[in-house]
């Protein structure tokens, strides 16, 4: 039997894009330093070489022009994949993300379609300081009209990239900086992960832990520690914020009666709040304990590792939260 090839999350980004570029000539990439330099995070390695300068475009430092041009191209027959180098930079092109791209179909009464992917390096863990480390999925969560994807494994990067590029809706694709070096099996050709399908990455019976992107490994490590102490945790990788797979979450809570969310964004306005609001509404009778959300503190992300750890969700914080609800 052939051994499964192992690739990094970072390599999976380029692989996922390349697979789609091979099957669909309308897929084109643009962004700062993505072509000749192959990306500041090396997430576009090999694309220029394989597809040439008509498919892979280096841009000036013009986030509005990058995202605006991607939109115009998407409206007129292309499937652009635009890179915003750090997700924090969405703030300088937010008009396109909040006002233009998601509203175009609706406010024209369905006359235009905007099939594009905005890829971005998101989240903390690499010591880049407050302006290059935020997890901003929840910014996009407030806007009707955007699909939001945040994979946690190389296989999901490839499968969700395929679904995102093939989607006729605009997708915000959050690649987690803290996961770029992580490794996993390379999925076979044709691997597609449907948007809006959460993944139960560990089965358990005492508590449901819902996590996203880099908080998935955190939750899994916590679950292992809890298992040693006799607590059986089910871990759900949400994969997408929109569509949000509440069916999987509610089914799991039906089994465990307890719920924890692990979110890298600050507590206020986080995706967990939205998720929990539905669970307590539609699944109130399923719950045996209060719901806890492990989220970041209400501070900009600090630079020093020890300070960052004090602010973002950690294994210790998840374990403590689980114990609190299990012992309720």
């Amino acid at each position: 039997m052939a051994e499964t090839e192992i690739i990094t999350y970072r390599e999976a980004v380029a692989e996922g894009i390349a697979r789609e570029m091979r099957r669909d000539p309308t897929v084109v990439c643009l962004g700062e330093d993505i072509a000749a330099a192959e990306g500041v995070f090396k997430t576009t390695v090999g694309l220029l070489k394989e597809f040439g300068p008509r498919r892979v475009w280096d841009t000036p430092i013009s986030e509005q022009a990058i995202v605006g041009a991607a939109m115009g191209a998407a409206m007129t027959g292309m499937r652009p994949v635009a890179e915003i180098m750090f997700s924090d930079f969405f703030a300088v092109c937010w008009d396109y993300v909040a006002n233009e791209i998601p509203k175009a179909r609706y406010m024209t009464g369905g006359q235009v379609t905007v099939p594009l992917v905005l890829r971005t390096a998101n989240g903390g863990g690499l010591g880049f300081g407050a302006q290059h480390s935020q997890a901003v999925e929840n910014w996009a969560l407030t806007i009707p009209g955007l699909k939001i994807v945040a994979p946690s494994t190389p296989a999901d990067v490839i499968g969700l990239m395929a679904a995102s590029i093939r989607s006729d809706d605009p997708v915000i694709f959050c690649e987690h900086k803290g996961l770029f070096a992580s490794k996993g099996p390379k999925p076979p050709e044709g691997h597609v992960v449907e948007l809006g399908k959460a993944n139960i990455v560990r089965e358990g019976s005492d508590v449901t832990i819902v996590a996203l992107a880099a908080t998935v490994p955190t939750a899994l490590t916590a679950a292992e520690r809890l298992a040693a102490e006799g607590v059986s945790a089910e871990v759900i990788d949400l994969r997408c914020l929109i569509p949000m797979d509440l069916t999987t979450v509610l089914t799991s809570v039906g089994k465990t009666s307890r719920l924890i969310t692990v979110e890298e964004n600050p507590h206020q306005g986080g995706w967990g709040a939205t998720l929990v609001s539905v669970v307590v509404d539609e699944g109130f009778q399923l719950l045996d304990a209060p719901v806890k959300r492990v989220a970041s503190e209400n501070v900009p992300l600090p630079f020093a590792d020890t300070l960052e750890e004090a602010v973002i969700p950690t294994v210790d914080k998840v374990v403590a939260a689980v114990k609190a609800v299990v012992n309720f």
Partner: protein
Amino acid sequence: MSGESTELLAMYEQMAVIRRTEKAAYDLFLAGLVKGTTHLASGHEAVAVGASFALRPDDYVFATYRGHHHAIARGATPEACLAELMQKATGLCKGKGGSMHLTWAPGNMLGSYAIVGAHLPIAVGAAWSAHLRGTSQVAVAFFGDGATNIGAFHEALNLASIWKLPVIFVCENNFYMEYTAIGSVTAADHPAADRAPAYRIPAKIIDGNDVIVVRDTVAEAAARARAGEGPTVIEAETYRHYGHSRTDPAKYRPAEEVERWLKHDPIDVARARLEALGVTPETIKSIDERADAIVAAAIDAAKNAPAADVREALTDVWADGGSAWRT
């Protein structure tokens, strides 16, 4: 009649239809049948019509919230425009867009954008797409003088220039933003044209109230664009006959200035040109009457159309037609 007279007469008719549609929008607003706001383009007709006659049907047009004239110039009916303003099911956008977002995709009029300057990069993207697909289509962004001071304008010009894209930037310079004169807040005499050379883009300042001048200038820019020679900036000087929006009386504009521009009405300019070409006053009058009839019928039809369908409120967010955010 010569070919030129025939075309000019067709342009004249379209300008006459736009003028009457805008008048109808104003009156319907006063009558309470148009809600929200409107930004009327009376006075700007020659820019839209001249450009449209220079373009191919498959070229792309992007406009601002002051965009009724561009929708009509690209083939949207006055009836569908007025119906949209009146929140009717038969409106261009089924009542979901309103005056500021008129869009007519069958004419590749790909939207009216209400965030100042936002559509310039989008038009650049459409031009990039045309270039990639090898269609020789061009994209045209129409925008106000006020838009030249926003970052998106500068990012768009730079990108269009370095990528040599087939895009035409047409500034409808009406000398005012909302209520402030552009000259008082801009470090350039010609807000669009003076900036273009910094991005190695050729620019022309033209009489935006002369439909022939607009048509010929846009035609030249389109030919350059199709030949792969890149973008052009056109600063078309014009003037709005109404205030900025709704019922703004525009008291901030000096009376002599208003009077001077009203004497240079684009429809009068076109009429004078028609007469110079030997078109009879009777022929012109018959066109005026036809425009009257078209818009009167449009007003009636829009008034009698059914109201926006409430079921449409939750459609058209996603490509599957729905708006669900969760499972």
